[in-house]
């Protein structure tokens, strides 16, 4: 009896002690192993740089979403239906005929997403930078840089949607409200101006791909150049001033060989002011070659990935180029050959000959009712992939380059009727492309064509066509008389339904 009671006492003690021990190990803290929490990250500058990096990785979409929307809405590019490929529910027809609408897949929503994603990422990074106790040299510079990067996203948003909202405070969770195009313009202008002096001055290997003072000047110049389209008020002289600042700095020049700007190892180009660095493995997402090349063209370039045979251009654009123009090298026309010289064929065994024209009267037709043959259409390969490239190219995408500065300055001078002053700048660009082709006099129309030749498939065709009043013009397969409201895209309906205070752009 007593033994039993004693044992019970011991048992109770043992149970209480073991229970206590075991219970103390029953903790309810969330343990995070393969992610980093705000408690332990970032703690030093190296870590901080990696949290700033999303602002730049977000910019990569410019070479894809923004580039495509600028290209296939114009006479510079077309995506035709080929067999069962590329109909995409009539998406490319809507872009090609300017019949985009706010519904899902009705318009290039990826342009909207590119802008708001970049803005949201930068807002988050800025909030985090302002809250972190970590101090390091150049923190102000990084903040200025991020704000200018954000201004870049806002500029793309203004360019494509016009009636945009401005949101800069990460903690402000209220529904964003639209501002007028002028207010948006003023915000972007002041944001750049307020921060430009803090940015890196000299181009260097260290700030390649980052938002430098020169890049910010180009951004301002772009804003001013299109200021009249955006606000109805012209800013030609302001644009000239920004261009001159860059020209006078003498940091940049035209590269000798036009195509060198776009080759796989184009990081060292003296002409590039702002590039988006891409890599086959690390920074992926640049696939113009996959979009445009024929399924079998991989053999020409030694690709390790079969291209998709989608994008091509129109004769309208091809015919702008004179024979001998260095810039004409970007087009692939006629019989295609493998690297070893054998003639390539289509998948059904016919010679792979890229034609100037399409035989179809409706190149965007629906699936199963005809379509465009595999080989039709001129292909554009400005960025030539290196041997062994897969789906992603290692070439850096050039956003701003020196030739643009020269042509922007020339354009503004012409618009201010200072045509003669403009001549040396436009001729500088022309001579590089085709020696001895200098203009003696220049008109706005000539200048427009020169821009189109110089910047084919660089993601600015739509913007340029609008500024020169050509976007509502006629070209192959593009119906005439489309209205000016289509110069800007509709705000996606899904965005408006989440924030009903937003007003849809007129015409949608």
């Amino acid at each position: 009896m007593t033994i039993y009671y004693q044992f019970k006492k011991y048992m109770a003690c043992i149970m209480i002690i073991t229970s206590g021990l075991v219970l103390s190990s029953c903790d309810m803290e969330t343990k995070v192993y393969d992610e980093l929490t705000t408690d332990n990250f970032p703690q030093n500058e190296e870590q901080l740089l990696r949290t700033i990096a999303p602002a730049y990785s977000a910019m990569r979409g410019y070479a894809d979403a923004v580039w495509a929307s600028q290209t296939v809405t114009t006479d510079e590019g077309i995506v035709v239906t080929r067999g069962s490929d590329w109909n995409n529910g009539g998406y490319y027809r809507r872009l090609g005929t300017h019949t985009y609408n706010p519904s899902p897949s009705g318009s290039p929503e990826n342009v909207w997403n590119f802008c708001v994603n970049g803005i949201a990422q930068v807002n988050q990074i800025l909030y985090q930078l302002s809250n972190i106790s970590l101090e390091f040299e150049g923190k102000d510079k990084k903040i200025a840089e991020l704000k200018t990067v954000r201004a870049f996203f806002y500029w793309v948003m203004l360019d494509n949607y016009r009636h945009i909202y401005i949101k800069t405070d990460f903690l402000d969770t209220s529904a964003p409200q639209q501002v007028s195009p002028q207010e948006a313009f003023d915000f972007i202008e002041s944001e750049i101006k307020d921060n430009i002096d803090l940015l890196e001055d000299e181009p260097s290997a260290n700030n390649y791909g980052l938002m430098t003072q020169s890049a910010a000047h180009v951004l301002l110049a772009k804003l001013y150049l299109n200021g009249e389209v955006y606000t109805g008020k012209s800013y030609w002289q302001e644009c000239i001033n920004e261009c001159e600042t860059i020209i006078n700095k003498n940091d940049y020049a035209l590269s000798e060989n036009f195509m060198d700007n776009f080759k796989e190892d184009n990081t060292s180009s003296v002409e590039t002011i702002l590039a988006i660095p891409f890599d086959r493995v690390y920074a992926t997402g640049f696939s113009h070659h996959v979009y445009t090349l024929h399924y079998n063209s991989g053999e020409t370039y030694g690709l390790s990935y079969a291209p998709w045979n989608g994008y091509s251009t129109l004769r309208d654009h091809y015919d702008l180029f004179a024979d001998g123009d260095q810039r004409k090298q970007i087009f692939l026309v006629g019989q295609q050959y493998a690297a070893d010289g054998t003639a390539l064929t289509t998948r059904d065994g016919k010679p792979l000959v890229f034609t100037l024209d399409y035989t179809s009267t409706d190149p965007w037709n629906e699936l199963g009712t005809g379509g465009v043959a595999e080989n039709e259409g001129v292909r554009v390969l400005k960025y030539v992939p290196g041997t062994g490239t897969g789906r992603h190219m290692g070439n850096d995408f050039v956003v701003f380059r020196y030739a643009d500065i020269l042509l922007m300055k020339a354009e503004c001078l012409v618009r201010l009727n200072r045509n003669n002053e403009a001549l040396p700048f436009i001729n500088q660009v022309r001579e590089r492309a085709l020696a001895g082709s200098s203009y003696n006099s220049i008109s706005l129309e000539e200048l427009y064509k020169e821009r189109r030749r110089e910047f084919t498939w660089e993601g600015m065709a739509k913007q340029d066509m609008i500024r020169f009043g050509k976007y509502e013009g006629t070209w192959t397969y593009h119906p005439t008389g489309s209205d000016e409201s289509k110069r800007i895209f509709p705000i996606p309906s899904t965005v408006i339904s989440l924030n009903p205070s937003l007003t849809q752009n007129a015409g949608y």
Partner: protein
Amino acid sequence: MTYNLTKKTKNNFKRLIVVCYLLLFIFPLRAMSQFEMLNEQVTVHQRNGTAAQLIRELDRQSAYSFTYSEEQLSKEKLATIDYQSTKLGVVLESLSKKYGFDFLVKGKIISVALKSPSQDSRSGDSQKQEKAGLNGEVTDAQGQPLAGASVRIKELGISTGTDAEGHYNFSLTPGTYTVSVSYVAYANQDKQVKLTAGTTAKLNFRLVEELSALNEVVVMGYSIQKRKDVSGSVTTVRSEDFNRGTYTDVNQLIQGKVPGLVISKPGGDPNQATTVRLRGVNSLTGTNTPLYVIDGVVGADINTVPPNEIESFDILKDAATASIYGARAANGVIIITTKKGSKDRTNVSYSVTGSTEAMSNYIKLASAADIKAYEESVGNTDYTGYGGDTDWFKAITRKAWSQDHTLSLYGGGDKTTYRGSITYLDKQGIILNSGLERWIGRVNLQQKALDDRLNLGLNLTANQDLNDYVGQHNSYSEILKNVVNSDPSQPIYNADGSYNRFYGIDNSNVVSLLNDLTSKNRANNLRGTLSANLKVYRDLTLSAVGTYESKNANYGYYAPSYSVYGLQNVGEAIAYRSYTQNRNKQLDLFGNYNHDFHGQHHMDVTAGYSYNYYENEGFEASGQGFVSDSFLYDNLALSENADKKTIASNRSSYALSRLFSRVNYNYASKYYLTLGFTRDGSTRFGENNRYGNFPSVSAAWRISREAFFQSSWVDDLKLKGSYGISGTLPSDDHNLEYLSTYSSNSNYAYINGKFLPVYSPARNANPDLKWETQKALNIGLEFSLFKSRLSGSVEVYNNKIENLLYTYTVPVPPNVYSSTYANVGSMRNRGIDLQLSGDIVRNKNFQYHLDVVASLTKNKVLAITNDEYTISTGYIETAQVYGDGNLGYTQRIVPGHAIGSWYTYAFAGLNEDGKYLFYNKEGEKVTTDQVSDEDKKFIGRPATPPYQLGLNHSFRYKNWGLSLFFNGQFGNSILNATLQNVSYLSRLPSRPVPKDFINAGITQTDPYISSLWLESGSFLRLQNAALSYKFNTERFHNFIKQLQISAMADNLFLITGYKGIDPEVKQEVDALGVDNRDYYPKSRSFMLNLQLTF
């Protein structure tokens, strides 16, 4: 009646108890008459007095106190009494013999009663022609009164019921009677009684429980209850009622046995788990599978339990019973209890099953000859094909052989019982090179100690699964698409005997793929449970259970350079390997307290604490390009394509802690009330919502126990109702949704002259995240009639699920990303569960038993948005169908409609040109190019079958047994996406179409998605049949205890109108009822089983 208790005994009561104990200890071994100790001397003289007078006198003279009924004893006239200085013991003994007094000495108290009249020895002259009384008490084996028992006087055919204290009372004419007492779940008892006029006989009955369904033990989670005492909704399936076969998933054992629990096995893949849904679909993104508790281990892997070693399944269906498991119980709880040792000599039991199976059905596609004929008929005279004539279904399938052995050893003594077993299952799949090999070893030890107050238990389970998968890495289903899409004119082999390795999109030589690719997994699982429970005091038991479980999976995939995937991949071989480990630590501390207050109030309290810690980690690597294919995935370092080497690892954990309590109360086994309260916490939620409360209440009324309810044919009738709250946790993919973290998705940006990995917020953190809440109401009626020949239950339920978790689109900015995981919507499941069980024939030699299980479930989505989160379109699109042409989503989740409601074009037949017609929204018939999204509408019946039926016939004739189990599901529409996909006329001749499609007059080249492809999913299947013979083992002189041989068959026949392979298709929430091209064909199997116990 009143009892007199004198004052002095009252005062000395405590002392007396001590004396009693001392007496007990001093004379513990000597058996002696109770009167021998009464040595006091008394002197009594009495003439013609009453018994009461005599006892009063004795009480006055002795130190003992007498208790007696004044009323009774004062009526008892006595003859002359004369004792001179006689020992009290002698006086009492002689009084007892002479007059039939019944004395009971207890300490210093002597109680006095009259013996039953049957033993009365008094002379006949005291008999009068008046009524005789008969009363008594009916109790159970423990002495607890049984209220509502039926007491019958057989000779007179009259009966009465016992009252709340278990008493009954008759007034009868004198005579000899047979008194028969019956009470449901107890064995009937008959007693003879002789009644004498003017006297009252007392006849008590102590009933012994009968083994019946009502007394079956139901495992409730941390406590057990008897079936008759359960007020919630629990269904138990015992091993003798299991389906019999070589099963890879133990859920198949109870398929169709539980109303409301729909278990389906889409296809015959031995590596594919069953889909288990209890009372419908409860969650959009969380789990819809019930919570498994194996021998107390919450969330244990069901593949670790050998079917032969399972004692029972207990399915907790309503929230009131399941909510003791809190935040994970909304899909119900399935408790699996394994067999344990027994107090018996050592038994060796061996069971072996051999089986063979073959494809039961397939889709008849056009043969090479059919295609050639068609091509010629359309003028394509150039068509030659590739010279083969291959039926790809037949080419990839085989007659599969399987074996299943279980050897178990069990036994034990008073203190120790043990059971150990080894199971080996080798299950071939009917598709070439697919299969599962499984080893399970387990040991269960039970040890009693401390006068049997302490119970120690040890459970060890180890198992290994070797999975041989069909096909391609990361997408086992990819390969099966080739079966219906490959050109039948392609031969399997070239003329030289090598594989004809043709390939295109879903059009490849599947036979070479199956042989070329290696896709294998080795899973090891180890689980150990140590438990202790101590009976601290009479009614109180404290328990502690600790478990550690570790599961490792080692997966490898290899596609050689010459395989289709290698050829597509610039001719390089692909090798991949992954290793994952899941660990689970569980601790349960709980107590059970059972007590009866004043006989009729029964209380049963369970309370405790449970903690689970789950940790998952994984490692994977891949390489490409090897100098030899003989490495397989065993030396990744030798991959020669430097750019294609990948490496990754991950680790995550979460914890759950739970306080639970449940109080069962019943009054006289008649009125039941159960209150439950669970507080559960999970690290998947932030501080705001980390802990949640899950209360429940249930009540039952056993009408049949009421005194007013007297029926000779109703054994038991119980009305019950419950209401409770349970929850669903976010799935493993959403482990950290509440938390702000940084992660890098192998994304880089060029900063300061080099590519740096990008660290960005991993998600839009939602600190308000919480579990989905299910509020469940259950009302049921249980009955047992005609001495348990017919029993059953009907239950109706109404479950409302709130705070449904879903990924919502949110504005950017202010949010960093466009989607947030949040609790928003709500839906409802209503239904009826019906169970009937009857012994239709119950003879000594022949028995026929029928079980019917039926259920009805109706789902309705109530809301998918709230003030904070909206869905711009107002609906969620699901059930995406992939393939060429206009496909897309085919279902919509919209408030007011059931989940799985089809939303597509309404097919309107063919026009004169053989093109498809659809009804547009104006009701006109239009062609493909005239319809638009606005013409789609809700059509057909929702994808989940609302009606479930299970019929189990079991016959027994002498030693023969036969069971036939029919399983059916009815009332749903399923999308035959396979048929849709192969009905592309434009793909002829390179891909086949269904044979009867060629000349059906259809000219439309692409099979537009529409209601044409919706078919009824109703079916009735003879799921399982088993014929067994049990040998008479007496002749083996007990050397063999049991010997039985059985022949079984699975899927013997199927009645359905469905045109696909089988209507039992996948029921995953994102594609409910979509029969896709990746269907692993169903099989029909025949098995032979031998069971032997020594």
